[in-house]
């Protein structure tokens, strides 16, 4: 066989292999996401719309529902992303044999109000977290955070990936357009700056699709959340047809 023909065969083969790999990885990744029926937050066919007292119950619901590999969008004053170092879980081993284990379990066991989005990311429920803050809160955050190792700050977004997993802090006008349904979490604290109707309008405007909405009254653990904000949350819940317990 002529040399050039052989070269062409190898070249074609390599390109075919790369193409097949790309298709495989794209399909494999997409296939790993666990989703349910998706629609607008007030779509009456939406099965999963919950009201909870504690924000971390959102994680428990997602876990129970088997959601995996999802984009989570949180609307709240707080970030619920207090990071836990693995060194707290990894025993100080000074001799062999080393005894490693899966870190998902201790991450889950460390779940509490202020870290439930972090736990969602570390356990694979969330592959990406987008945290939407009210504009004023975002402006205050901008003063505290500056670009550094791995953190990118622009006027409209703060990108702060966690071990390579994307995490964005932004405001409603700059919500990214997404072509997949998200897991939606809304805290009563967000209604300090928005009315229920205005928020629903913005969610429609953004074209947001979801298969699970969790509303948190933050009743038990957040003294900053006022009764008025909780009342607005319940108005929002009525707008979208959510109630305590599952639908």
């Amino acid at each position, binding site marked *: 066989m002529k040399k050039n023909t052989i070269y062409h065969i190898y*070249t074609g083969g390599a390109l075919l292999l790369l193409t097949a790999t790309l298709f495989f990885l794209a399909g494999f*990744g997409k296939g790993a996401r666990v989703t349910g029926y998706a629609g607008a937050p007030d779509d009456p066919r939406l099965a999963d719309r919950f009201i909870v007292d504690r924000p971390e119950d959102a994680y428990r619901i997602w876990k129970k529902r088997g959601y995996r590999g999802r984009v989570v969008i949180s609307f709240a004053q707080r970030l619920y992303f207090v990071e836990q170092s693995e060194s707290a879980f990894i025993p100080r081993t000074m*001799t062999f044999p080393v005894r490693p284990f899966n870190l998902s379990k201790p991450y889950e066991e460390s779940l509490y109000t202020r870290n439930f989005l972090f736990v969602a990311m570390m356990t694979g429920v969330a592959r990406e977290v987008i945290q939407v803050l009210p504009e004023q809160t975002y402006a205050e955050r901008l003063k505290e955070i*500056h670009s550094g190792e791995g953190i990118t700050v622009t006027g409209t977004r703060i990108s702060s990936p966690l071990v*390579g997993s994307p995490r964005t802090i932004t405001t409603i006008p700059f919500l990214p357009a997404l072509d997949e349904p998200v897991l939606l979490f809304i805290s009563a604290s967000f209604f300090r700056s928005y009315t229920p109707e205005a928020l629903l309008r913005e969610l429609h405007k953004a074209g947001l699709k979801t298969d699970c909405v969790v509303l948190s009254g933050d009743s038990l653990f957040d003294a900053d959340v006022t009764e008025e904000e909780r009342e607005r949350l319940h108005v929002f819940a009525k707008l979208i047809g959510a109630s305590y317990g599952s639908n």
Partner: protein
Amino acid sequence: MAVINLKWPLLALLVLFLGVLLRIWGIPQQPPLLDEVNSAFAAINYMENGQFGPTMWYHPNLRNIVLYGVMEFFGHGPFALRGMSLLAGVLSIPLTGMIMYGLTRNRGASLLAAFLLAVEQVHITFSRQTIQETWTTFFFLLGVLLFIFYVKREKPWLLLLCGVVFGLGMASKFHALFPLLVCLAAGVRLAWKERSAARGMFVAACLVVVPLTVFLLTYIPWFGRGYGLMDWVTMQQALLMKMTAHRGNPMDQTIDIAAWQWFLRPMGYANFVFHEGRPFVTIAYSNPLVWLLVLPATVFQSWLLIRKRVAGEEARGGLFILTLFVVSYLPLAVSTRPMWLLSSLATIPFAFMVVALVITYWVDKVNWGKRALAGYVAVVLVSSAALYPLATGKGKHYGYLSSIVERFRPAFEGGRDDDVNR
């Protein structure tokens, strides 16, 4: 009947044996370092959760994949966790010699280069740890050797295999990119000289497309977290940003962090654990009798080539080796971020090749050359033996090493401030 000259093979075997011995001696008694424990957790975290971390999360993941498999079959003991590093470290020795020989046909230089790597305390220290640095060195050395075979034998499958191996190197650490680029440039140049577009595309396919495919495939567990291709691109950007901005972790040492000084003065890298109630410190420490020759040898070798004092195969081989060293070292040397000594494994095989080439040039030129070489080898052997206890954690038992051990003490008594941005 032809007499088979066994001198060179026997010497090569002796060098290899020495390298094996220095790397495996006392392995079971060496307690696990924090990075090694975390590597075991990282392997499970990656393979079962598709998640990076807890250690060195910004590096590629071949280590996690292989370590997971090794632990499944061989457990979690010292040889299981360190086995790949040991193997990669040992095999790098004959690979160094074979590359030299393939490029220059100079037996003496080849053996000397292999010897210098075999007894190099820095390479020994890291071969004894569960980290990916020695793997990267092994893969890119194997890749370069396969490239040389391809050029000499013109068998296309060799270049394909070369691409696969470089892909595995890239999947260990990005340092494999530098020798890959050199091979790619050399391959394209050959195709250009032949005016063969088909050959040029074939070279690009083997040395760009194939390594990329292998590199991508090592991210299968990560894709299993639900990510898409654009997510992968974004993630690689995040990793690159982290790597280029990395200033170290709180307990990382704050001295000897400039790559441009590697070949200007002795430098070290220390790891510390508490074992049986006492600190156990391993220190990788460069041998000045070898490392301080690197830059002068580089300059001299360049001069030889410019002045055409060497010709033919040795000149071409010498130029290729010089290029491999310069291309693998320069990006690290000019980097503004801290560069610890473990990154030097990306350059020292090529650095030692340059040194060996220049030394053997002079051995041939002067009457007392062979005696001088024997003397140099003896001195390097003695100095390597003197530094060896640092690799096994016994440095503090030897008074003459105490000043080196003490030099790294401040790194363990204080740390840096955590990054407050988060």
